[in-house]
């Protein structure tokens, strides 16, 4: 304002003295002053204009510098938050994770004009794509490109392939980055994990069970740890597969269970499927033999019957001789597979797997008490596990007759899943506490209390007898040196239409190790093994499922913290003479 005033005041002075009649020099001076004033005003306006522009520019810069939004701020957490949570094993090895993948998408509108969507002819582009993806059909691809409809050309392509497609220079061939559910271990633990179908969520396994947790915005940051140990799972599947192929079986199932916490360390069902390729079309082999298949598991039930009898006080003296002659029941009779002498004691009956003695023990125990023990072991309901695929046991309804009681005693007339058996064996060897099985990692300080099914003393007796079966009896091929394995074989004919199928067998082996302080139960079930060279042309459990356990235990023992030791074993000195008479 001061400057303005000064400028405007200066030209005012000459104007005020301009005479009314212009004369000579004075007129020239007046004109000159006027022109000068005009020039000054113009310069002033110019300056004001410049100043304004500079001010605006400065203001703009200041506003940008002070409050201007930097190119959209993304927080680290948001950017790294997976669209679906990760599933890991108990040690943190990833089993399922969100994985960035590339797709090949055809977008005819990408060129942005009304001309052809492709630079070259569809035929040429199809040929070029054929060079990258050898399995495509050139004619069909050319038709697809010529049709001008947008859509996926290929759902998943590798980064190298994406680069080669990019170098074709066709703008209409887009390579969008998509997040995919990926299972790095491939088919491993497929039945435990399940798979994910886009827009439908998790299917089948823990993907379905944990659907809410895995897709929850707040919870999906942290990976979910399962109880599975990926190394144990790998060893179990490897040995199961080998055993299944060696005996030409149609399927196999295996479970490794922690006896003290109920955690499933490994669970496998063969044949398996690949969750990476399973999608909306579903998958083959989704049937989970470990938790969904119900089988009459045969002789593996005999130790449970004996444990119930010892617990109830029916078997007090293990040296007592029981009649081993065939048991007449109505018009039929229960026989042994081969005669083992006129009488046997209970340890001998288990070691030689005698049907007759077990039936007599069950008979003496009575249907109500055996039924009670089986209910306590959870045999009358679906297995306790998170998986949605849980088989309902075939449970004899109503009050049990004498025949039912005796047949259940040696594992017939009652069909349960292998998981039921593993859970029951865990209760039998861990001191008598039944605990629900789980696939979630259990905090060691917060183990479920469980319920007592057997007495501590019963469990201790059973540990001795199970160890004797694998030392002297049918389980010898499972006796891995140094691991103190104890277990029972079971071979049962599959029930078919109109009675038992003589040619189809289910062979099982239920074991625990180390028997002096049991830590893990291993159950292996082989579905319909055939007699092959590998199994010495035998189909029974001693030649089909027990060797699988014998090879598996040394592989998983050190991983699970069980050290082989030749100088340690469960003390069987008080029972040894009952079985090992001549030796």
């Amino acid at each position, binding site marked *: 304002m001061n400057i303005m005033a000064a400028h405007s005041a200066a030209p005012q002075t000459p104007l005020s003295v301009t005479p009314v009649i212009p004369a000579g020099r004075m007129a020239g001076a007046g004109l000159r002053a006027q022109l000068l004033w005009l020039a000054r005003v113009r310069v002033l306006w110019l300056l004001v204009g410049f100043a304004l522009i500079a001010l605006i520019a400065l203001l703009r810069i200041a506003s940008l510098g002070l409050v201007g939004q930097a190119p959209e*701020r*993304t927080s*680290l957490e948001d950017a790294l938050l997976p669209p679906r949570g990760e599933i890991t094993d108990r040690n943190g090895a990833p089993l399922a*994770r969100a*994985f*960035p993948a590339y797709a090949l998408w055809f977008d005819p509108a990408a060129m942005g004009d009304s001309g052809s969507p492709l630079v070259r002819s569809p035929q040429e582009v199809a040929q070029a794509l054929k060079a990258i993806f050898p399995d495509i059909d050139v004619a069909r691809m050319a038709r697809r490109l010529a049709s001008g409809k947008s859509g996926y050309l290929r759902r998943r392509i590798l980064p190298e392939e994406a680069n080669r497609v990019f170098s074709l220079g066709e703008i209409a061939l887009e390579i969008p980055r998509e997040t995919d559910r990926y299972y790095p271990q491939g088919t491993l633990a497929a039945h435990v994990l399940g798979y994910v179908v886009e827009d439908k969520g998790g299917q089948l396994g823990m993907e379905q069970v944990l659907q809410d947790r895995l897709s929850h915005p707040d919870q999906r940051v942290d990976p979910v740890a399962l109880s599975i140990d990926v190394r144990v799972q790998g060893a179990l599947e490897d040995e199961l597969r080998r055993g299944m192929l060696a005996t030409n079986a149609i399927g196999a199932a295996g479970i490794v269970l922690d006896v003290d916490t109920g955690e499933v360390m490994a669970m496998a069902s063969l044949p398996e499927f690949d969750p990476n390729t399973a999608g909306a079309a579903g998958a083959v082999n989704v049937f989970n033999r470990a938790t969904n298949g119900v089988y009459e598991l045969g002789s593996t039930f005999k130790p449970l019957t004996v444990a119930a009898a010892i617990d109830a006080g029916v078997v007090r003296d293990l040296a007592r001789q029981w009649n081993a002659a065939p048991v007449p029941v109505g018009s039929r009779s229960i026989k042994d597979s081969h005669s083992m002498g006129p009488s046997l004691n209970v340890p001998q009956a288990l070691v030689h797997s005698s049907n007759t003695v077990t039936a007599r023990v069950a008979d003496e125990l009575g249907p109500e008490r055996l039924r009670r023990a089986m209910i306590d072991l959870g045999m009358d309901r679906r297995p306790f596990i998170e998986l949605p695929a849980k088989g309902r046991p075939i449970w004899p309804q109503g009050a049990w007759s004498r025949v039912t009681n005796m047949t259940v005693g040696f594992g017939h007339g009652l069909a349960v899943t292998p998981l039921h058996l593993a859970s029951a064996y865990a209760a039998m060897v861990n001191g008598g506490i039944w605990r629900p099985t789980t696939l979630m990692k259990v905090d060691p300080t917060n183990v479920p209390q469980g319920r007592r099914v057997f007495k501590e003393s019963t469990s201790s007796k059973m540990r001795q007898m199970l160890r004797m079966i694998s030392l002297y009896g049918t389980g010898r091929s499972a006796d891995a040196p140094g691991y103190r394995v104890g277990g029972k074989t079971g071979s049962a004919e599959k029930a078919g239409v109109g009675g038992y199928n003589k040619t189809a067998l289910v062979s099982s082996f239920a074991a625990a190790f180390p028997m002096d302080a049991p830590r893990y139960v291993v159950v292996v079930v082989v579905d319909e093994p055939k007699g092959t060279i590998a199994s010495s042309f035998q189909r029974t459990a001693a030649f089909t499922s027990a060797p699988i356990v014998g090879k598996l235990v040394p592989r998983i023992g050190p991983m699970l913290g069980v050290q082989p*030791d*030749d100088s340690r074993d469960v003390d069987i000195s008080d029972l040894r003479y009952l079985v090992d008479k001549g030796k």
Partner: protein
Amino acid sequence: MMNSSQARSLGWAAVLAICFALVVVLSFKVHAVRSEVLLAERQLIALQREALLLETEFQTRASQRQLAEWNTVEFGYSAPRAGQFLDGERQLASLGEVRGPGAPSPIRLARAETGETAADVASDEPMRSPVSGAKVALASASAEGDAGAVFTQAFGDFLIEASPIRPARAETRRAAKVAAAQGIAE
């Protein structure tokens, strides 16, 4: 001429102008740092994603099934036996027991000097693949110069730095004591 109050107000105006200029400069600086942080964050995200990608690739290539197959075909490792484990410190210590007085001397194996070194023997028979039986050229063999020397040259200093066992401390007290005891005995 300006009086003192005019000079004071001019001074205040100058101070105000300087402060304003400083604030502007500072806020520009803050914003620049913020942009750098943002850039670093983006780099972090990109690296995290790359790490995830590489880790997943590693997990896939080293999946349990693949490892089992490699073991069947190439390595043939088997599960450890009971004799391969030590029961505790006591058993470990027993391995370093000093020979008692009157104990039989340990068996020593003789070795004939044939004049050829281990490297010569190895170079006579090239390594063969256990699968195809074809000769395998090791990467170290095709490299120029001795592989060990190349490795030492490349990583020797680093490994010495990284190793928890320094050459000076490589001998444990126990071993020194045993050596001293044997020196006295002989």
